[in-house]
């Protein structure tokens, strides 16, 4: 169980996120949705330990608990996947996939072997020695997921992982991700602004509102995945939509 307690993120004296608390179970997908600017990405970046990177002036206060014990990000139990695939163009797909393991100190050969074992189930067999520029966007995204999953961390933090894909590939990739997570279950925190994505994938949806960022609803989605038809999900999407619209600043 991963817990965030009393997270406040301030930018230049203004609170971007205020007193945010939630828990992430060891299994299942939790979607974090909200209007842009509500700080959902900042929450994810804080969990990944990269909030201070780049965007200067962001200051965070809050506690991260792993099974009740205080933890500090970046933490090996949490693996982060940035928006876009962030594959290094000068590494082969296999080397990219093994990046997290080699950075964690695993010898190169062992890391490559562990990543190689996942290429077939991830539908990437034969791509090992290709470079990212030589494969399609969908394949690149698969490789990015492989890089995240192979780290065998207990939790995965995904920042809009499908946003760079076209609509058809996105639908296929969502099903594909669910299948991969069934084989290798873990706790997933999925940041998205796509209601279809949230209602299609998540076991639970956290709705954030802006100004300052806070969680306004915690909605479980008990419907099994095979029965999540357009019609079945419409009422949930409608209520989420009205919830988000209500919180928009006028």
């Amino acid at each position, binding site marked *: 169980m991963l817990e965030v307690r009393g997270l406040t993120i301030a930018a230049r004296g203004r609170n971007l996120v205020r007193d945010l608390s939630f828990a992430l179970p060891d299994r299942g997908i939790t979607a974090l949705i909200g209007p842009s600017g509500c700080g959902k990405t900042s929450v994810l*970046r804080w969990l*990944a*330990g*990269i909030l201070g*990177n*780049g965007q200067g002036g962001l200051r965070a206060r809050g506690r991260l608990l792993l099974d009740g014990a205080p933890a500090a990000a*970046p933490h*090996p139990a*949490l*693996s*982060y*996947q*940035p*928006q*876009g695939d*962030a594959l*290094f*163009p*000068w*590494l*082969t797909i296999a080397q990219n996939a093994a*990046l*997290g393991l080699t*950075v*964690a100190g695993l010898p190169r050969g062992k890391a490559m072997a562990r990543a190689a074992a996942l290429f077939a189930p991830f539908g990437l067999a034969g791509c090992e020695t290709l*470079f*990212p*520029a*030589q494969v399609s966007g969908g394949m690149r995204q698969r490789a990015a997921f492989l890089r995240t999953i192979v*780290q065998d961390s207990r939790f995965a*933090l995904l920042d809009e992982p499908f946003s760079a894909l076209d609509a058809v590939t996105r639908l296929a990739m969502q099903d594909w991700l669910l299948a991969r997570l069934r084989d290798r279950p873990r706790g997933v925190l999925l940041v998205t602004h796509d209601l279809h994505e949230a209602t299609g994938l998540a076991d639970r949806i956290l709705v954030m509102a802006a100004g300052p960022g806070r969680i306004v609803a915690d909605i479980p989605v008990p419907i099994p995945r095979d029965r999540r038809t357009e019609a079945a999900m419409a009422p949930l999407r409608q209520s989420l939509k009205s919830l988000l619209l209500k919180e928009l600043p006028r």
Partner: protein
Amino acid sequence: MLPRIPPSLILFALLLAGWEGYCRLSGASPMILPPPSGVARALLAERATIGGHALATLSVAALGFTLSVVFAFIASVALHGLPWAERALMPLFVASQTVPLVALAPLMILWFGFGLLPKVLLVVLVTFLPMLLSLLSGYRQTPADFRDLLVSMGARRWTVFRRATLPSARAPFLAGLRISATYAIVATIFAEYAGARRGLGIYILAAKNNFRADLVLAAVVVSAALTLALLAILQLADRLTARGPQERPDA
């Protein structure tokens, strides 16, 4: 099918033909404007002498250039790690580039004598900054995603630098290297012109003083060839060390 000839080669041949034709038709004195054939004859006749001088120039340029690459790399790593040092030193570096070579070359000879040191220093001075700037700008082009990803994996500063920042700077660095390489031979000749025992610069000076325009031009041809050879070596190094199908924008 006709073999494909690069347009630059055709243009070059046309220019040479025009020059040759002008010299024949106008009856210009070969003392003032020797035709290309005259330059070629002079080059052939003096090839041993010019070759020796060219070798001296090449060794100075290569040594200076190599040192410059090493210095630029060390300086870039230091300045990348210490942003305040970059802000403090950069104006100084840029100002150093505004000193005219004509003024600097004789001073270098005056301070450091006729040996290797002043010439190497001049080459370093001329070629250092383009490389440093290209490295620093390459470091800055590192995608933020790459850095975020590595830090979230628990990478320390040095690992981030080695695995993301340095490889990102590869293409800009090679561009800077090509710019610096074209300066290296010219700077060496300048230094030799101000005073040397051997080298193309001093050879050109002597040929000019003897009114041998053909020999001056022959030396110029050799210096151009040296620069092109240096660029070809860089191109080869680029090919050999390339990782992946990267687009190669020409600098």
